[in-house]
């Protein structure tokens, strides 16, 4: 045992040269990787013309803003009511947007799943279509829908539906593709047709997964629904952007606080629901 003490390191190194040899190839690769990462960052600083002199001044100003924000103060009760109404709009946008997006995406995701639709062309077209829709941000959809149905939360709902349609379509089809084959084959072998096998062999398996994804996105949509008001699509973002523009910092911090509380309570609720749904599945 004495040969394994640290005093005898040279002896150990001699006996296991492979372990103690410096791997220059590996080190070189790491150096190139780190160098490239840092180099690109420096290039970004030059290319974007990041003004370092404004950094310190900006920090000071940011500190002033934070000082002005404290304590959060909505002003009057009438304002509070207005903000709560806007918050209700935001939650409605998130809820209906998520629901609508999920309902629209379900049939389309079946078209994009390899184990449901065998036709490669349909699948490819569906996927690329979903990718295109997903590539456009919720804010951009909101801009478009504001032009169609006018200002207000309804445009926000439609925008969230559109962007969620793309996301859910992709997520759902992936969930469907990793499902077990056996139940579907069982349905087919006992005489069911293709639709039967999808309905009774596939959907019961993936439904809890899809539901938990929907709940997860409800939470993340609440976050994005708080901002689409910036382009006029209703909700609390409109108030927030307004108060930031007129430098009413105490109201801004009150609104941010309101958003924080709402998002974390929805996070909590959807977490509970998700656990209940997935939990049920593991029991059954």
């Amino acid at each position: 045992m004495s040969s394994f003490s640290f005093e005898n390191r040279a002896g150990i190194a001699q006996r296991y040269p492979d372990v103690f040899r410096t791997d220059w190839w590996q080190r070189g690769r790491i150096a190139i990787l780190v160098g490239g990462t840092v180099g690109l960052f420096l290039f970004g600083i030059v290319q974007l013309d990041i003004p370092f002199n404004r950094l310190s001044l900006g920090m000071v100003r940011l500190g002033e803003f934070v000082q002005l924000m404290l304590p959060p103060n909505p002003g009057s009760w009438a304002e509070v009511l207005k903000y709560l109404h806007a918050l209700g709009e935001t939650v409605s946008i998130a809820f209906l947007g998520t629901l609508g997006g999920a309902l629209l995406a379900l049939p389309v995701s079946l078209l994009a799943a390899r184990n449901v639709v065998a036709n490669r062309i349909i699948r490819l077209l569906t996927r690329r279509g979903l990718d295109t829709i997903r590539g456009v941000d919720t804010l951009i959809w909101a801009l478009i829908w504001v032009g169609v149905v006018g200002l207000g939360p309804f445009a926000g709902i439609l925008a969230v539906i559109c962007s969620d349609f793309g996301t859910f379509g992709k997520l759902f089809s992936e969930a469907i593709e990793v499902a077990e084959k056996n139940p579907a084959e069982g349905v087919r072998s006992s005489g069911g047709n293709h639709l039967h096998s999808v309905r009774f062999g596939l959907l019961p398996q993936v439904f809890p997964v899809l539901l938990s994804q929907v709940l997860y996105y409800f939470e993340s949509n609440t976050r994005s629904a708080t901002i689409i008001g910036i382009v006029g699509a209703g909700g609390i973002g409109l108030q927030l952007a307004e108060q930031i523009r007129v430098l009413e910092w105490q109201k801004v911090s009150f609104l941010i606080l309101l958003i924080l509380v709402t998002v974390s309570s929805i996070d909590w609720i959807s977490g509970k629901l998700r656990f209940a749904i997935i939990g049920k599945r593991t029991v059954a």
Partner: protein
Amino acid sequence: MRTAVPEFPEARLRELADRYAAAIAAKRRRVWLGAAVLIAVAIAAGWMGEVSLGNFVENFWRFPAYFVSIAPKFSFATAWSDLADWLWGLPRWARLLGDTLLIAYMGTLSGALCGFALCFLASANLVKSGTTVFVTRRVLEFFRTVPEIVFALIFVLAFGLGPLPGVLAIAIHTAGALGKQFAEVVENIDSKPVEGVAASGGSWVQVVRFGALPQVLSNFVSYALLRFEINVRGAAVMGFVGAGGIGQDLIEAVRKFYFTDVSAILLLIVLTVMLIDFLTERLRHRLLGLEGSTR
């Protein structure tokens, strides 16, 4: 070979069948109840969100009409010059798109570094002090719950217009989001290496460096790449509030009804996002594949 199929007496069979029927009925009731609650909430939300089907039906034609109007004018005879007309601003837009990618990259990198530094403080299996964990987690939650556009709005006022507030806003949001995901990875690691380093006299930093880090690094990079993908989308709209990138040109084109510009910029954004998605997915698969092979 004959096997006796055991058959229950009639009374027992009926009882089992009844119980099955009752279970099915209970499940049906639950589903119907859930559906009723869902519909009620949806109606309430529809009222709150000013859903108006009349408005929708009346104005829906504008939606496809908008896409028709932003579509570029093409005629077969002059296809090339039409294309050149449509993409007249390509050099400028390409530069702005490059800026957008750089904003996303710099934001992701600095945010990931912050999240990396904070995640170990937010993992209950590495830090003894409950207060540290709690405070770090709340800070991360604040960072990721306030939308990045809101940070950008405030930063634009503090730092002036330009890409800097965009980078900072994305960095803060990324630090919050990645910090949480990183901490979850760290909390799920195998505790034996950590204990081993601690038992042979390693300091806290050494425990993290040699016990925890090798287990989590590939997952971290994978999450960071995923976040980069998300941030590219985020950076594309940063310009809406004056925080740099292509968003500025897009919102101007939309507001001023430069129809063909809208479609050109949208197309460029979508193509860029798809390309980035494709590349990061390839990278992530390679990374996770590598991790699988070393195990």
